[in-house]
């Protein structure tokens, strides 16, 4: 890293061009009002390009999970719409347009061994056993669990269960990973390790990731771009491009530029909570 790079402070400029690549997800003025009358999201415009690692960062109640679930087509927007690879959701699942959702909890079947859990999406799609097993082996190797394929979930630690969950997502060979605070329940050391492994996977396999978190450090460590959200009402406050080359490792975590990004995001979130309170 040159000195010029090291001293450059992060710039917050929503106009800054997003990294190249055709759009994978376009959120077009989508909002959400729940049947209780609670407005979870004001109309959102957001584009996620192929190859990006975008985090949705914000306090609880800012609608970041709601937005992610809209992208996963688990929730319908009240008005506005979304596009997946420039088309409607009907084309999702075609080659090059595969999307997969990773839950906050590992969400494993306790009666099934690791192999059975990872193979589930293939079994449901009717993939032949032999081909399925080969793909499961590859997915388990990616998350470093090849020796645990015949364990039951309860025999694994929380971090390992989360790895199984990620392997189950990867086994479908997705193009887009939607992750809803996947490491939120883990201790910091495990979380850092999983963040690193996820980032390496994203980099090597040229995935696109949309990642929900409330950790500033996690968002700065991982993202090409951070979408900062605020609560009451749920809205996008600012998009911040994290201008730092990949692969990133622990040296990035302790660098001055990392700290500068983290500080500025912290200031943004603090301002948002003040302006959010003013709305009430």
């Amino acid at each position, binding site marked *: 890293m040159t000195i010029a790079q090291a001293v450059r402070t992060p710039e917050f400029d929503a106009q800054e061009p997003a990294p190249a690549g055709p759009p994978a997800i376009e959120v077009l003025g989508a909002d959400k009002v729940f049947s209780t009358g609670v407005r979870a999201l004001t109309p959102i415009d957001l584009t996620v390009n192929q190859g990006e690692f975008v985090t949705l960062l914000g306090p609880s109640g800012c609608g970041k999970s709601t937005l992610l679930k809209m992208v*996963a087509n*688990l929730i319908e927007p009240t008005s506005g719409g979304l596009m997946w690879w420039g088309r409607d959701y009907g084309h999702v*699942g075609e080659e090059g347009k595969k999307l*997969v*959702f990773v*839950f906050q*909890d590992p*969400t494993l*079947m*306790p*009666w*099934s061994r690791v192999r059975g859990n990872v193979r*589930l*999406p293939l*079994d*449901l*799609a009717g993939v032949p056993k032999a081909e399925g097993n080969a793909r499961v082996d590859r997915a388990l190797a990616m998350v470093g669990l090849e020796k645990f394929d015949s364990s*039951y*979930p*309860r025999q694994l630690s929380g971090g390992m269960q989360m790895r199984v969950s990620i392997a189950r997502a990867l086994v479908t060979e997705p193009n887009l990973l939607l992750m809803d605070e996947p490491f939120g329940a883990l201790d910091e050391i495990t979380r850092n390790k999983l963040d690193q492994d996820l980032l390496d996977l994203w980099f090597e396999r040229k995935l696109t990731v949309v990642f929900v978190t409330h950790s500033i450090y996690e968002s700065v460590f991982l993202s090409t771009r951070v979408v900062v959200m605020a609560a009451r009402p749920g809205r996008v406050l600012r998009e911040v491009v994290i201008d730092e080359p990949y692969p990133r490792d622990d040296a990035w975590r302790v660098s001055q530029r990392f700290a500068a990004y983290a500080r500025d995001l912290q200031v943004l979130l603090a301002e948002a909570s003040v302006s959010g309170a003013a709305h009430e």
Partner: protein
Amino acid sequence: MALDPNNRTLAVLLPVLVGILVLVVWHGAVWYWQVPKYLVPSPILVAETLVDQWSLLFASLLVTLKVTFMAFFLAVVIGTLIAFAFAQSKFIEMSFFPYAVLLQVTPVVAIAPLIIIWVKEPTAALVVCATIVALFPIISNTILGLRSVNPGLLNLFRMNRATRLQELVRLRIPSAAPYFFGGLRISSGLALIGAVVAEFVAGTGGTSAGLAYQILQAGFQLDIPLLFAALFLITLTGVALFLIMVTLSKLALGDWHESELVPET
């Protein structure tokens, strides 16, 4: 040897010791107070009666076992089918569940005479009564199980475009298994109780005389040792049924379900 509550030998040894103690005290009390055998026979006399009257008691035991197992089998099949039907649609459950409760709360002694009149064949009548008694735990537990699906897993299945059949076979049935086996334990005991109670009401003698009939007859004739011997066989049957269900449950759930895990120390 440390007194570890997880010790498996202790788990067998302690109840056996208690049993022996009870028998010794029982025998001692009967001998000391010279209790007449038409009030309380000594355990040794009961054992002798069991051996002497074995052919009679064994034939009756077979009859009771036959009724119990047929009723239990029918309860499991019918109960599971009803539970699946209820789980398919909230409206079916809404319409019929109150009547399932009706079956549960009506004492079998009260409807047994009616069933015995309607069903001519005596054994079949007993089976119907016992089935009614054993049915409800299977229905309610299986429904509860089929509905107790982790919502996250359900989302996962839906996102992977699982068919209803895949959802049922790969998700709902395994989720329901622990509840189903809980229902089996309760229901197996109830099938036996139903078989005995129904026979008390029916009072069928002859070749289809079960253990309840022997108890009734022994009571009329003040043959208390025979009564105790028959009672002992019924209890033994109940315990055996329970142990079979526990074993089945362990075989099916032992690898993964919390209820069957041995705590690690």
